[in-house]
């Protein structure tokens, strides 16, 4: 196990995105997640690390799995969890979000886990409150814990204990344009040294991603044999405005991960999907439930990554509280 330098400090009291998170902090969070992984298999699935802390799930957009995952992560750390579902129309933003958050904060909350349909809303929230904020997905911008759990799944499968992904090639396939999952994956994967190929129809594949260092392709069959990991995304119908696809059937024909297409891939290729899946559109049932699929492992790893995220954002700045003259406790 690699030792961190003694002077290393996690200094972030928010987790907003992987774009701004330095690579050593991404690695440290993933290493911390490894320590949390075993808790889910114990007889008492709880540790007292966040005892007495309050975590609020503030979701402005529908979500079942992410909210449940955060809720379970918080309760396994012994925190109290409150779910606050606030559906809002797109016009009542700005002050409303800020006021809602500050009202919740005034109740003595330690962490707000926020999902919002507008990109950047969670960053605005973080600026207006003193408690920690974790981004559970903001618009088309970022979904950092999903990116981290995807990376964790890749590293675990390929035995990269140091979370250095050099030499691995990851294809992210589908609706790149509207995907916050894609963005968080791209930032994280590139920082850790992986090669990233974005695959999708040109209407869903903004050319700007090439500037980040990604390869872009609309020929899935040509890309598939070259990759170690294929991450299939859902078409985000709720975010799409206008006509971007001739038909779902055509999309499935060119970009669906079918059993037939799987024959082009390496035999040990890792298949991932952030969920929820549209079986028969971007992925066939036989592939989703097949031996290459890591989809359920992703869910389990998500719990460990979210526990690590909540633990670290509430632990930041602990060094400043150090009692003078006190050494390591025995």
């Amino acid at each position, binding site marked *: 196990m690699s030792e961190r330098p003694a002077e290393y*400090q996690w200094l972030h009291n928010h987790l907003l995105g992987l774009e701004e998170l330095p690579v050593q902090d991404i690695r440290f969070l993933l290493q911390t997640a490894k*320590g949390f992984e075993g808790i889910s298999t114990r007889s008492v699935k709880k540790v007292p690390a966040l005892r007495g802390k309050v975590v609020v799930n503030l979701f402005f957009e529908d979500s079942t799995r992410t909210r449940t995952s955060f809720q379970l992560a918080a309760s396994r750390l012994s925190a109290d969890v409150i779910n606050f579902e606030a559906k809002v129309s797109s016009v009542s933003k700005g002050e409303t979000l800020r006021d809602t958050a500050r009202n919740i904060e005034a109740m003595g909350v330690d962490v707000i886990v926020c999902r919002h349909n507008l990109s950047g809303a969670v960053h605005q929230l973080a600026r207006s409150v003193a408690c920690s904020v974790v981004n559970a997905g903001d618009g088309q911008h970022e979904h950092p814990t999903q990116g981290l759990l995807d990376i964790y799944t890749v590293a675990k499968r390929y035995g990269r204990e140091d979370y250095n992904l050099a030499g691995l090639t990851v294809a992210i396939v589908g609706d790149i344009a509207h995907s916050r999952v894609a963005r968080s994956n791209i930032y994280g994967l590139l920082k850790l040294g992986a090669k990233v190929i974005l695959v999708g129809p040109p209407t869903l594949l903004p050319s700007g991603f090439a500037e980040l260092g990604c390869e872009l392709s609309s020929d899935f069959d040509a890309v598939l044999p070259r990759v170690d990991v294929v991450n299939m995304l859902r078409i985000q119908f709720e975010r799409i405005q206008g006509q971007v696809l001739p038909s779902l059937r055509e999309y499935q024909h060119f970009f669906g991960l079918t059993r037939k297409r799987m024959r082009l891939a390496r035999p040990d290729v890792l298949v991932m999907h952030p969920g929820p899946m549209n079986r028969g559109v971007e992925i066939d049932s036989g592939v989703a439930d097949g031996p290459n699929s890591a989809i359920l492992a992703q869910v389990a790893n998500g719990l460990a990554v979210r526990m690590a995220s909540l633990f670290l954002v509430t632990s930041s700045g602990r060094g400043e509280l150090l009692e003078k003259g006190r050494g390591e406790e025995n």
Partner: protein
Amino acid sequence: MGIRSRGDIIAGQLAKQLKPDHVGTLDITLYRDDLSGVAAQPVVRTTEIPFAIDDLDVVLVDDVLMTGRSVRAAIQSLMDLGRPRRIWLAVLVDRGGRELPIAADFVGMDLRGKIATGDQVRVRLRPTDPEDAILIEPGPGRNVSA
């Protein structure tokens, strides 16, 4: 059952001679009650106990016993993993300074009453450290050769 990060090394060395049925490693970071007072970033590592601890006689192994808070955390952690029949405590050094009613069953070096409260006791063990050593560093204002 060694407590990270040096108790596990001592536990491994003891196991070579005592040949117990199982050897495990306990990470107690998440059970500590003083996280806000720890100098360096607390690093959460894995607990490696690939066996059921129900009805077992468990010897907890740590490098230095001082306040007893690590041992309290380790006991709580073990209780969450199952129900051992009995828990013993073995430490390389007991330096005194208890803040909890905890006593070791086996002590390698007893420094209670022999050093001042402010003195630092550091255990160095290979391979984590370059050498095997117990270092006593005088606290502020004391001039003692160790």
